[in-house]
């Protein structure tokens, strides 16, 4: 997702796989659809701040450790 001059990448897929969870499992834990998890993992959708915080908390990390803003 393009945000001005920067692009946000994330490590959600790596963290999810490391925990042995499917996209459906993670979606259920976060109360979103599996499609949304897939879109986030493939960088087609940048989550809102509340959802990004929920994802980070779920993995026991900070938002900055999972989401990375690449400035062009």
């Amino acid at each position, binding site marked *: 997702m393009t945000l001005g001059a920067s692009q946000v990448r994330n490590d959600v897929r790596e963290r999810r796989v490391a925990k042995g969870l499917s996209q459906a499992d993670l979606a259920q834990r976060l109360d*979103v659809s599996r*499609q949304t998890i897939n879109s986030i993992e493939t960088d087609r*959708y940048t989550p809102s701040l509340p959802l990004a915080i929920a994802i980070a908390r779920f993995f026991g990390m900070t938002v900055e450790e999972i989401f990375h803003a690449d400035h062009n």
Partner: protein
Amino acid sequence: MQTTIKTSRKYLATPIFGVAMGVAYLVALSVAGQPVWGVLALAVMVAFSGALLLARRRSETVKGLLDHRDERISAIDLRATAITALALIAVILVAFVVQIARGQSGWPYSMLGFVGGVTYVVTVICLRIRG
């Protein structure tokens, strides 16, 4: 607990609105002396609402559109609604121009355009105040 109940029933809003519109069609067509068409219109709206509830069990997208719990699907809904509004605005403007070019008053497209314009301005002001 109340929040959970409120949230769990939120998906019923659109189907209930659909049935309510069906009842409105029935009443309007009955008043117009066409009760059979009214019953048919109600049946179509009940079937549409029922189809939505059934589709909700199989489709994440329909589920998200009905309960608005998924922020991405809610954003898609918002954008789709905005594009729909743009299409309607374009039709209204073209129809208005065609009507006045034919020497007609422009009614009802002038009123539709007026309502749309006022709604947009008031909404922008309200949303700016809310921050």
